[in-house]
């Protein structure tokens, strides 16, 4: 059930969860599980009309947040603001990096932390 909620692009009401799961379960069962998951704090809910819509709680290191269309774009200001993890890469770095990666993979260090 959590997988269905993760896969959705927005919060789901119980009826939608039921549809996503293929209708094997009874509506009341889905409701019960959703309520229990909510009590455990695994999912959160917002009121939509008279029903609740559920979605997974996003932990800080969770990878699935929202998928936003490419926004990397024009403007020097934007590039200045978004200084990246892999900024400043030169084509000639490739050979060196491949060699380093190969080294790392063949002789893994026992370095911890």
């Amino acid at each position, binding site marked *: 059930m959590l997988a269905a909620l993760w896969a959705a692009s927005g919060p789901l009401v119980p009826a939608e969860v039921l549809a996503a799961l293929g209708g094997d379960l009874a509506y009341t069962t889905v409701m019960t599980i959703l309520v229990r998951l909510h009590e455990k704090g695994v999912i959160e809910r917002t009121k939509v009309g008279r029903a609740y819509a559920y979605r997974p709680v*996003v932990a*800080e*290191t*969770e*990878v*699935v*947040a*929202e*998928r*936003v*269309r*490419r*926004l*990397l*774009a*024009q*403007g020097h*200001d*934007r*590039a*200045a*603001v*978004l*200084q*990246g*993890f*892999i*900024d*400043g*890469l*030169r*084509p000639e*770095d*490739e050979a*060196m*990096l*491949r060699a*380093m*990666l190969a080294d*790392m993979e063949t002789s*893994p*260090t026992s*370095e*911890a*932390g």
Partner: protein
Amino acid sequence: MRAVVYLPLLASVAFVCLSRPACRRLPPCRAAWSITAAMAVLAASTVGALGLLAWPLMARVPIVAAAGRWRPGAVTHGVPVPVVASLVAWLALVALAHRAVDQLGRLRRELVETARLHAELGSTGRGRLAVLDDPVPEAHALPPTLSLPGRVVISTGLLAALDDDERAAVLAHEHAHLTHAHRLFTAISALAAALNPVLSPARANVAFALERWADEDAAARTSRAVAARALAKAALAKLSTPRPTVASALIMGLGQLGVPERVTALLDRDDRSHDALAWLLVGLALGGILAVAWATHDTERLFETLRTR
């Protein structure tokens, strides 16, 4: 007074030469702090020195002379600064003020752009992390604004290229940028370089130190090996992705410090102490500001003697 007033300029040149080995050898946090602070102090010192050189010309203006109670003629004869030097100093001050205003404008536009990016990302879950549907592997730390917290932005391209540990390392790296307010360091170094163009090369050294700092945080969270691997894999993935026509990466010059140097630093931990470098940096900055203080004192004394009773 005359020789001492040029000291800040010399100190700036020496500092820039030292800042490169400093950003590679000092512990990154210390490197970032000391290089940025030294840049700020040296920028203030050179502006102060220029002000002292420009001052005699100002002192000859009748209104100023009247206020200070000295005769304009006395200034011309009594102050050992040639008119030409004063003129050049004035021109330099005007040019530097222009640069500083430009830089402040740039910083303001970056703040506006930051807010705009936050708005585009919208409210994503807890608002701390956003995933971009983008094949180009990259991750960024979007700084906070007055009303919004900072965010880590990561592309699906990067997520696809890394395993769980490595993703954690990247997230820890970007999070470190936000936690330690690295934007402030880059902003201060940019402003210092605007006020003292001699310091410009040190900006890249600050940037490198900040990346190393975040790398070390990531290594602490996962491990040095994992962080190194994440960086190398991410970089190779980016190199093999066809570049979009819109440039998003800085164009690196020869000899600039970049990703391979960061990977090496993570793999070969350098535990030697390089305190001497740190002290030298501090010494240069202090030297600059002390020189200006001394020259100011000298100037004050000189003008005291020029005062008519």
